[in-house]
């Protein structure tokens, strides 16, 4: 077990170095220098040149990369150029709180809707309810998040006036409802389909026949015998989905003006704020990779057959 964990952790190192290399290359390939963006259109060529020199942008790219990597290993993400020289780590810790709340809200919504829907569907496969639920979840997977956001805002924000349209206030749950539903919709759809499929898988097993022959009710068989066995694949889906909800909320955060990591990154791209961009991507990738690793380890812990791979 420990060997497995160590091997998987070791595999993450080249991946994370690769992520920094790719993102460093992309960040420096963006058109327009940060010095120009910082100083505005009226700056003279000399001013821009001096600013570029000061920011260290005139050194060869490999040198800049190694310097960045060296600072990164020591945990220093540098300062943001566009936000009054604030430390990137400070900005990201602030944003992480918002992103985490949003991800948790989205996952709660997805689990509360998706798992019961999947169980109800599996109760009578190809019944009316199943066809309806699976049809809706299929549409859910195909709906662009930003369009769903627009529809939700129109219905609940403008027509019914139940919920705020956008923005964020610390401590206000109401501001997180629509973004959570938007972000969690696809996960809910995936969870519903996965729950249904893995329960149906389990329903074909011998122990279900045994349970039925003992005269247990269908519901009891389903909930007490099939569902616990079907839950294992769900853990993987929930874990890896949570990681992508945490890090992949660029569109949702942009549409709802939530000050999370996704929007921070999007704005950093347009401000050519290299340190902030790289910091966002590195933190997101670390979360994403480690969360998926944690899911794999948890899975191996729960299913000993996988440890030998």
């Amino acid at each position, binding site marked *: 077990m420990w060997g497995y964990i160590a091997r998987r952790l070791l*595999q993450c190192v*080249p*991946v*994370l170095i*690769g*992520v920094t290399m*790719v*993102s460093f290359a*992309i*960040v420096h*390939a*963006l*058109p327009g220098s940060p010095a120009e963006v910082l100083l505005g259109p009226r700056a003279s060529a000399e001013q821009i040149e001096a600013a570029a020199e000061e920011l260290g942008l005139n050194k060869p790219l490999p040198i800049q990369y190694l310097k960045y990597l060296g600072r990164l290993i020591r945990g220093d993400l540098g300062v943001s150029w566009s936000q009054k020289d604030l430390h990137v780590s400070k900005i990201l810790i602030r944003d992480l709180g918002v992103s985490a709340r949003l991800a948790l809200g989205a996952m709660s919504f997805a689990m509360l809707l998706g798992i019961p829907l999947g169980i109800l569907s599996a109760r009578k*496969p*190809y019944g009316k309810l199943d*066809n309806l639920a*699976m*049809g809706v979840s*299929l*549409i859910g*997977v*195909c*709906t*662009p*998040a*930003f*369009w769903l956001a*627009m*529809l939700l*805002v*129109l219905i609940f924000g*403008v027509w019914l006036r139940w919920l705020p349209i956008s923005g964020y206030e610390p401590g206000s749950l109401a501001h997180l409802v629509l973004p959570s539903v938007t972000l969690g919709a696809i996960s809910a759809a995936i969870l519903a*389909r*996965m729950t249904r*499929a893995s329960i*149906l*898988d389990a*329903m*074909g097993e011998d122990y279900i026949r045994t349970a039925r022959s003992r005269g247990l009710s269908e519901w009891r068989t389903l909930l007490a015998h099939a569902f616990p066995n079907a839950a294992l694949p769900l853990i993987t*889906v929930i874990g*890896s989905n949570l*990681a*992508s909800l945490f*890090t*992949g909320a*660029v*569109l949702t955060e*942009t*549409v709802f003006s939530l000050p999370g990591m996704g929007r921070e*990154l*999007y704005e950093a*791209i347009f401000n050519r704020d290299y340190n902030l961009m790289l910091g966002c*991507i590195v933190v*997101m*990738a670390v979360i*994403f*990779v480690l969360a998926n690793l944690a899911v794999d380890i948890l899975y191996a812990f729960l299913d000993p057959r996988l440890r030998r791979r």
Partner: protein
Amino acid sequence: METAGGKDGEGGSSGVPSGKRDSEGTCPMFHGAVAYGEPCAGAAISPSGPGAPSPLAAAWRRLARNRGAVFGMIVICAMSLAAAGAPVLSPHSYWDGVPGCERLGPRPGFWLGTDLLGRDVLSRMMHGARISLAVGAAATVLSLAIGLTVGLAAGYSAVYSRGLLDAALMRLTDTVYAFPGILLAVGIAAIAEKPSPYIVFIALGLSGWPGIARVTRAETMKIAAAEYVLAARSLGVPTSRILLRHILPNALSPVTVMATLAIGGNILGEAALSFLGLGAEDPYPSWGGMLSEARDHFTVYWWMGIFPGMAIVLTVLAFNVVGDGLRDALDVKSGGASY
């Protein structure tokens, strides 16, 4: 994954494919496709003896019986037709607005309304379909080219050499996969001096291949251990020929399924990038771009946002049900459901 249609003839069983792969007696082409034990007319169970339908024909018949997949194929054909014929078929110009007809709701003449500049929403959607479908398909082709190459090389080297190439390629795959969501595509698309559909296609293609590579690698490893590959190797058939003639055709079933689903995913990706302002620019319409224009006026001029969004959902849905149908018809056990 079952869609509403695929249930005929199954008395109460769970609908989970119960076929077992028996590789004996099937021809090497698509040999996974023949051994599908779907309890239907019975023709599909028999191995391909003389007179039996070819595996591809059998798969096609299974697909044609799947109502969801047929619906999907009809939608895809209709959308492609509307896109291809847009210059001739569209009732108005997508470029010039009609003066005095700004912000009209749906009505005869302007069936889906007009936008802020008096341009017909239906005509713009038909022209937008050109960009959405072309970018979706082209990005998938690019992802396929990279993913198949990486997957074949990695899988084959994992079986027949010491696997260094495999380890290196898989870490590369993991690296691209470690960028969450459309992040990598956003980054690549932002490199362009000017936003355009071409950069969107490249960005989506370059970021969408890890799933295809992983599936191809897994299939390659399975097939590379088969006896006919061993036989070809012992006869001295060059590696490139083994990969292209013996392994690739047999790995195509799951890849076809993934590619179909990937087109839908790439259409969503194109819409997202255009929505963020990285895709086609006004006056050129794309569905995501139209939603972006509608965003600030959506609450009043709802038709500007409702119809392009419905077009996206319908098209992506069509590719997904066809992909699911193909998965059942070709009997692909694991499919890239997680990607």
